[in-house]
């Protein structure tokens, strides 16, 4: 009991993260399992850095050469450097592992990155869609301010178009989806302490245990941010015949468990 209350007193409203990964590369992006649809997990935060929103200039030249951005090599950069690295990873995924920037010596490699010179001349690119190439072009931009941000990149046509195609054949059982939605509503009516207890159980479970539920979650999360916003929540529970006000209230109660308990 006392431990639970200790946790209660600890939780305060979620605040924004301001963290740059700084070492995104092929080796640091893992598949959770051998399953063909296994989720991606970003690992290794050994070089990550938290920065203050007011002063977000980073100066340490860290990372792995092949995925480092030009501005990181120069030593004045922001979290936009991570987007360059994602561009490098996308290029490599589609080019069967060939890197966009290569050099016989580290010095040559650095020179190529600084110039931002890469091409799509290899044989593999013949069959790649213009959308994919435009996506890579939007990330491998030498000037960080002209490069897509993470939110912009997620809205790129290449990714959103693919989502629409995939959603036609969803692998989640209809019945299960229904039960999850009812579960959310029942959950919203619980007392704070029971909510908290369930949250502790939830947080302690591994991804494998919530494989199915996560699929439903991904359906709700239509703009792929990893979080459910109020409009998405409303859309998901729309056919339950709740009024706008009721849905707001349910949402407020669900979110409440982890955001307002610090008042105890």
């Amino acid at each position, binding site marked *: 009991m006392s431990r639970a209350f200790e*946790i209660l007193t*600890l939780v*305060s409203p*979620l*605040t924004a*993260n301001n963290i740059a*990964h700084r070492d*995104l590369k092929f*080796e*640091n*992006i*893992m*598949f*959770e399992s*051998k*399953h063909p649809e*296994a*989720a*991606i997990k*970003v*690992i290794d935060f*050994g070089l990550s850095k*938290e920065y203050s929103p007011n002063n977000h200039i980073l100066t340490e030249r860290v990372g792995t050469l092949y995925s480092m951005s030009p501005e990181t090599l120069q030593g004045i950069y922001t*979290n936009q450097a991570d987007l360059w690295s*994602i561009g490098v*990873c*996308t290029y490599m*995924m*589609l080019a069967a592992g060939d890197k966009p920037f290569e050099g016989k010596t580290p010095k040559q490699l650095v020179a190529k990155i600084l110039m931002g010179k890469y091409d799509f001349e290899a044989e593999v690119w013949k069959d790649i869609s213009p959308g994919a190439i435009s*996506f890579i072009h939007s990330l491998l931009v030498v000037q960080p301010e002209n490069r897509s*941000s*993470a939110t912009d990149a*997620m809205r790129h046509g290449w*990714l959103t178009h693919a989502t629409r195609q995939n959603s036609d054949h969803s692998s989640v059982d209809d019945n299960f989806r229904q039960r999850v939605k009812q*579960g*959310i509503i029942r*959950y919203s009516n619980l007392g704070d302490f029971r*909510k908290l207890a*369930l*949250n*502790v*159980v*939830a*947080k*302690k479970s*591994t991804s*494998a*245990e*919530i*494989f199915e539920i*996560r699929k439903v979650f991904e359906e709700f999360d239509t703009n*792929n*941010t*990893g*979080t*459910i916003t109020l409009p998405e929540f409303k859309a998901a529970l729309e056919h339950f015949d709740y009024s706008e006000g009721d849905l707001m209230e349910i949402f407020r109660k*669900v*979110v409440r*468990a*982890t955001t307002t308990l610090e008042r105890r």
Partner: protein
Amino acid sequence: MGARGSKSRRSELPEGRPMRSFHEALVREHDLRHDFDDIFEICDCIGQGGLCSIYKIRKKDDQIGGSSRPEHVRRRLHIRKYSAPLPRALSNKGFPLAMSLNERFLSQDPSSESNAAGPTNMHFALKVINLAMVKEDKIDQLKNEIEILKTLDHKNIIKAFETFQMRANKKLMIVMELCTGGDLFARLPYSERHATVCIKQILSAISYMHCKLTPVFQTRFYVSCLVLLRY
């Protein structure tokens, strides 16, 4: 959830910084190697680098209690407790059902148990960071990884569950989710469709880290709902 380590303590936050996520409050910190040996056992070495090595570890059966105790352990305990060994005459032919049940329960190898979705809830990854060769002033930098991992709670970012900071033998250990599918190199080449699926998840994780908005409603609330459905 085995909160028996009285020496384990809650993470201490840098002064004035509010708790970032609910997850952060649940990451346990320990000081003693002894605590680790009580809870986990090492299965395998997965990788080794200059400063750190990664192991596959497993939660000891007796550390998993209550309703989250895996089925095969519960059954085995039940059999030990309540059933006397079957008389040989009966077990040979007379009661094939009883025999086959017993055989099934007792021969189940916990390490072979896995489902389509991935490793079971008993397997974890352990990252051991060796501080012995590191100068004092760099140690804080290495602890940085723990501090950051604790604050992140996203479906596409590896999760930390427990940390061990041992001054005696200068080691830093992090118990994390285990990934068994290999890195991006493991599935080369990618079709465009598969690439978009992966890139979307990577971007989702990165935009969460870079995010200036408040995350609202995370995956794991759904588990709360599932728990409700079951009990």
